[in-house]
């Protein structure tokens, strides 16, 4: 367990740090690369929790395909690094205060709720956890229990595609 905890906290720290990096990096490239790091560490978190399929998909789809696309766009548009802010407006300050407030609230909630334990029908063994995270199990659930959602999600994607094409390509007027 100790090793698992160490891995978890290490990956979590990297994830948070890289997320902060996305925000504060002045260069879009650094920002994007930080995001890749963030996605990778989250994928690592999935893996430590035996959700192997999702972990792999995370790397393939997000860290791989999507981020490459993002980087290409950045490079093609040849975006400059943002200038350093001369002064900080009240907006970001307020946002920061609110963010801290929200964080404090959530932390408080978590701390009060540490004691809860879920009544599991049977103790989850490592083997079961591995089985649960496999592509096989996921596929079975996805095509039975969540078959309808899968179809609706397909409609969602179709609508998004159609909409994007229409907004970008249709000749208006």
């Amino acid at each position, binding site marked *: 367990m100790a090793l698992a905890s160490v891995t978890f906290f290490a990956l979590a720290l990297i994830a948070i740090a890289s997320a902060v990096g996305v925000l504060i990096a002045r260069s879009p490239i650094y920002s994007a690369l930080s995001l890749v790091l963030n996605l990778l560490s989250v994928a690592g978190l999935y893996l430590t929790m035996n959700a192997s399929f999702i972990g792999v998909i995370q790397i393939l789809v997000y860290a791989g395909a999507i981020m490459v696309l993002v980087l290409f766009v950045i490079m093609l548009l040849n975006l400059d690094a943002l200038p350093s802010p001369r002064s900080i407006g009240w907006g970001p300050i307020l946002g920061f205060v609110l963010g801290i407030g929200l964080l404090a609230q959530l932390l408080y*909630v978590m701390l009060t*709720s540490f004691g*809860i334990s879920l009544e599991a029908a049977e103790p989850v063994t490592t083997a079961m956890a591995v089985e649960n995270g496999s592509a096989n199990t996921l596929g079975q659930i996805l095509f*039975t*229990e969540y078959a*309808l959602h899968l179809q*609706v999600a397909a409609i969602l994607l179709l*609508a998004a595609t159609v909409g994007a094409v229409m*907004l970008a390509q249709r000749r208006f007027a």
Partner: protein
Amino acid sequence: MDLSGAFTAMWADLPAIFSMLIVGAAGLVVILMEAFQNRDPRIPWLTAGAFGLAMGWEAFQLGTAPDTAFFEQLRTGGYAAYINLLILGAGLFTTLVSPPYLRRLNRNFGEVYALLLFATVGMIMLGTSNTLISVFVGLETMSVCLYIMAGLLREDEGGIESGFKYFVLGAFSTGFLLYGIALMYGTTGTMHLPEMAGAFPDGVPLLFWAGVGLVIVGFGFKVSAAPFHMWTPDVYQGAPTTLTGYMSTASKASAFAALILILFFALPSAQASLVLAVLALITMAVGNVMALRQANVKRMLAYSSIAHAGYMFVALASGTTAGYSGALFYLLVYTVMNLGAFGVLALLEWDGMAGRKQTLSSLAGMGLERPVLGASMAVFMFSLIGFPPFGGFIGKYYIFAPAVSAGLTWLVIIGLLFSAMSGYYYLRVIYVLYMQTAADVAEADRAPEGGFAQPAWLSTAAVALCAVLLLVLGVAFSGVVDVTEMLFIQADAMAQTP
């Protein structure tokens, strides 16, 4: 897992999603038709047909007992049928009023109707969801379609901006919703709403309530409750008017329906009542105060729809079955009057030199020039105020009365004060329609000769039907109220027998 059994079960459940099937299939057909023939004139008819057919089906399901389908993912029976009828009816109305309007703006694409149909699929899933997964998938399907609709008028000032704002803020709020869902799932270990309330034998952890709060935030955004309402005026103003009508009614109806399901089934106690009451207060205040000074009718109606979300939150805050059924009834009334009001607006908006004109002054004297539309608009405005004998009055009664019973008298008094205040901006529309003429308004606001679209009888008839329906709802409402009440008595029985 025995897959063959699963497929038999799904096959048997197909009738439960008849409407989704019809509407979704129609959407696919529409896309194909559009691909073969640009702006195929049959598309609106096909769309209307699909909505009508689905409505017919749902009408027969109104009296059926509550049940679930697709591995308890969706609810069926009376409640679902009622919500679906609302959503499909809004879709049908929108399909009927849209063609002349969109044609005038040169946006009468088949894709618009396909998106309308796809959005409806999402709404049906959302409004009848029995698990948080269904809530999320339905909500997102609906939202994506609405984002695109909001940005349809690309060249128009505010058009693409409205779509973009809606999209970014929507994604932001979805983050909160997802976090809430995760917390609710994490603390209960189940996605099924009816199982959640009983998942805490020894006390409800605060973490669960935090999840509920975040889910309320997500829904608050969708139904434009303050302070999550900021996108509403911009988006409503920028979107094509008939689609604004659809957004402001169908999406709210299904989001409220899902929220009611969550509040009713998943919450073990009335802890959320204070939140809902405060949201109701802020929302009523923001909506009504901001609507006072709007010169743009669409913006005014946007704030009005915010205010009405506030009224509905009053009913939800009461936390009783009477409150929920009152909210359901109000949803019906609200849908009819808002659809109608936006419909009238769509037919009276003119295409001047400087683009669409939506200012209040541009409606001067229209009440007499277009008597049916004018009279209908007057009915909608009176009903929105909550003036007897129109549906709005009865609707307000049925959402305020349970709140009084639940001890929220202070909130109801404030709500009534705001309703009285709303008379100012609603009556101003009637005043301009009937008491002013084009000569009374500034040159720039005047409608040019022939600026209006040719009278579209089908659209006009649909608007007039809404007005008549409001009158009927205002007089012979008890049947509908009985239905909404019965839905909850049934749901109650359902919740007690797991």
